[in-house]
C-alpha cells in the first residue's frame, strides 16, 4: 500500500468581481456539499477518538482493580485466580514476531533487491502479481496452513517429541511469509525511488551490479528500508489469526519457540470468541491488552513514518 501525502491539488484562483452581474453569489448547495465532505474526512478522527476512549475507559476500569505494576511485571496470566501479568502474552508476541521478522526481513529485502535491480522485465511482470496474491490471501488461510502443513512438516524434521502440536515456531515462520510481500514491496518502492542517475554514476565507474546495489542503492534507500522493517514488525505484533490457530491457546511464559504459548492477540480472540460477561474483569482485561497492543503498534507506525519523512529531505 502506498501511503504518501501530497500537497492539495492546485485550485485556480476564482475571479472575484463586484458589479455588472459579476457579484459574488451565495451557493448554499456548494457549501452544504463542502460541509458534508469535511464531516466525512473528520469521521476518521472520531474513529481514533473512539478507539482511544473505549480502550482507555475499559483499561481504567481494569487498572482500578489490578495495579499497573502487577500488569506489566506479573509472570502469570490466570484470570480465574486473579493473576493478570501480561508477560506471558507479551513474551509469546515477542517470540513469534521475532521469528517472523527473521524470515521476512532478509527474504523481503532480497526479493526487493532482485525485483528492483536484477529481474528482467518479463519476470518482474510475473513476480510482482504473485507477491500481491501472496499478500492478498486472508490470514486465516495462513493459519490453516501453519497448523495443518507447516507444523507436521517441522515435527518431521525436529522430532514430534520436541516440537509441540501448537508452537510458536511454526506460527512465527508462516507469519514471516505473510509479512514478506509487505516488506518486499515497501523495500522495492524505496529502492526504486533512488534516482537512476546515481546507479548510472556507479556503473560508469566500473562497479559491478552487486557493488552498485549494495554500496550505492541500498545505503541511499536506507531510511525507506528501515521504515519498511518497522512497519512489518508492527504488522507482526498485531497479527492475529495465524497465532490464534497455530501458536497455542493458553498463556505460557517461555521464550522457547518449540513450545506452545498464547500471544496478546491470540488471547483476545480466544476469550472474546467465547461467551464473556460484559461486566467482568475478564472483559476489561481484554481492553487492557488491546490498549497495550495499540500503543505498541502506534508507536512503531509513527516511528516508521518519521523515518520516511526524513528520507524525503535527502533528495531535492
Amino acid at each position, binding site marked *: 500500500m502506498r501511503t504518501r501525502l501530497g500537497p492539495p491539488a492546485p485550485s485556480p484562483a476564482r475571479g472575484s468581481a463586484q458589479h455588472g452581474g459579476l457579484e459574488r453569489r451565495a451557493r448554499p448547495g456548494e457549501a452544504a456539499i463542502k460541509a458534508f465532505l469535511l464531516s466525512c474526512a473528520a469521521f476518521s478522527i472520531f474513529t481514533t477518538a473512539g478507539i482511544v476512549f473505549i480502550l482507555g475507559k475499559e483499561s481504567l476500569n481494569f487498572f482500578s482493580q489490578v495495579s499497573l505494576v502487577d500488569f506489566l511485571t506479573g509472570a502469570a496470566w490466570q484470570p480465574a485466580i486473579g493473576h493478570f501479568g501480561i508477560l506471558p502474552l507479551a513474551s509469546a508476541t515477542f517470540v513469534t514476531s521475532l521469528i517472523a521478522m527473521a524470515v521476512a526481513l532478509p527474504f523481503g529485502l532480497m526479493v526487493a533487491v532482485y525485483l528492483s535491480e536484477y*529481474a528482467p522485465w518479463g519476470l518482474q511482470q510475473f513476480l510482482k502479481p504473485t507477491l500481491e496474491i501472496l499478500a492478498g490471501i486472508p490470514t486465516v*488461510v495462513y493459519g490453516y496452513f501453519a497448523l495443518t502443513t507447516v507444523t507436521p512438516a517441522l515435527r518431521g524434521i525436529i522430532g514430534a517429541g520436541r516440537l509441540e502440536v501448537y508452537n510458536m515456531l511454526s506460527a512465527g515462520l508462516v507469519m514471516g511469509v505473510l509479512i514478506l510481500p509487505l516488506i518486499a514491496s515497501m523495500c522495492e518502492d524505496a529502492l526504486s525511488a533512488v534516482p537512476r542517475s546515481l546507479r548510472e554514476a556507479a556503473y560508469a565507474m566500473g562497479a559491478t551490479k552487486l557493488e552498485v546495489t549494495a554500496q550505492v542503492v541500498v545505503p541511499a534507500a536506507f531510511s525507506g528500508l528501515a521504515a519498511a522493517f518497522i512497519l512489518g514488525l508492527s504488522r507482526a505484533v498485531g497479527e492475529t489469526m495465524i497465532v490464534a490457530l497455530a501458536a497455542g491457546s493458553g498463556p505460557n511464559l517461555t521464550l522457547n519457540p518449540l513450545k506452545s504459548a498464547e500471544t496478546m492477540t491470540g488471547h483476545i480472540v480466544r476469550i472474546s470468541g467465547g461467551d464473556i460477561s460484559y461486566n467482568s474483569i475478564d472483559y476489561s482485561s481484554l481492553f487492557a491488552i488491546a490498549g497495550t497492543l495499540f500503543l505498541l503498534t502506534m508507536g512503531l507506525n509513527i516511528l516508521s513514518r518519521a523515518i520516511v519523512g526524513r528520507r524525503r529531505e535527502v533528495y531535492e
Partner: protein
Amino acid sequence: MNGVYDDRLAGRKAKASRYGVAFLCATLLSVLFLAMLVFSIVDQSFGYVLLTYEVPPASIARDGVGVDAMDAPALVATLREGLTRRRFAALDEAEPLASRKPEALRAIIASEILKEEPAKTWTLSQSVFARSDIFAFRDREFPEGVLRFRAWLNPKLLSNPQSASALDSGLRGAAIGSLATILLTLLIAFPIGVAAAVWLEEYAADNALNRFIRLNIYNLAGVPSIIYGMLGLAVFVRALEPLTSGAIFRAAQGEAASGRTILSASLTLALLVLPVIIINAQEALRAVPGTLRQAGLALGATKWQTIWAHVLPASADRILTGTVLAISRALGETAPLVVVGASTFLTLDPVSPFSRFTTLPIQIYQWTSRPQGEFKNLAAAAILALLALLMTLNATAIILRNRFSARRRAGT
C-alpha cells in the same frame, strides 16, 4: 604519486553473480511457498474418507438392492421403516420427501438411520500414491468400514447449512453472511471514503486540522484489525445495541435481541477499510491532471460541478479498483468479527441486517480449530471457496478498470 589499479574483476564479478543467484533463490522461494500453500489446500480438499456405520448398510438393502442403487420411492420406504414416525412426519412436513432428490434422501438415510461417521480421512496425494496402504488400514482397523473418495469441495458444501456432521455441513449461511456483510460494509464505507478523499485532495487547505486528519488516517491504516474488533464490540455490540440488534425497529430476529448482528459486523469492517479506501481514492484523485480541473473551472463550472462532472469520472477506475481491493481485504478478515461476536453455530440463514451471522473466514477458523481431522478437510474446501470468491472480486476489479480506461480512450 604512485599507485596502480588492481581491480580483481574476475572475483568481483563472480561474487556479483553468486549474490544474484541468492536473490533469485529468495524470490523463487516465496513463489514456491505460494505454490505449496495452494497445493496443500487442494490436497486436503479431496481424498479418501473411511466411513463407519452403526447400522451396516447391507442390513437395510431391499430385495438385494443396496441404498446406492435404490430409486426414490424405495428410499422413501426405507426412511419410513427406519425412522420414528414423528421424525419421518417432521421431515416430510419440512419438504415432502416424495418430491426430494434421491441424493438428498440418501444423505438422510446415511446420517439418521445408518449413523454414518467419518473415522479417518486422507489427502489427495495419499489417496493417489498410498492407496494400498489406505485399504490395508481399513482392512486392519475397520473391516466393516467403507472407503469413499470424496471431493470436500462439492455443490452440497455451498448449498447446505451448517451441521454437526462434517459430511453434511455446508457454507450456505457463512456465504450469505459474508456477502451480506461485505455489501453493507461497501454501502457504508464507499461514500464516506470517497467523500473524505475528495475533501482532502480537492478542498482541504494546508492547515493544522487537515494535516491532523491526514496523519490520523495513515495511523488508522496501521492499527491492527483486532483493535477495530474491540471498538466494534464496545460501541456497536454493546453501546448501540438497541440500534444494531434492530430492537428500536422492532426487527430483532428470534430469541434474545443482541448486538451481535450483521449490522455490527459491517459497521466494524467499514471502520476498518475506511482508511484504505480513503488513501486509495486520494491517490486516484491525485492522478487526475490539474489541467482537467482548470478546464472545468474555466468554463464557469463551480468547484463541485467540476469535481462531479470531470474529476470523479476521470478517476473512477482507480477509485473502484482501490475499493475492490479494500473490500477483498475485508472479506478475508476474521479476527475483528470473532471479537464482535460471530455465531459459532448457525443453521438459519441470515435474513436481515439484524440477523446473527457467521462468515466464510469465521467458518474456516472454527472448522480448523476443531480437533477432528475431517473438519480440517472441510476447512480446506471452504478456503478454496473463499479464494475463488476473492479471485472473482479481483478479476472484477481488473475488468472494471479495463472497461473504464477503454471508454476513456474511445470517447472522453
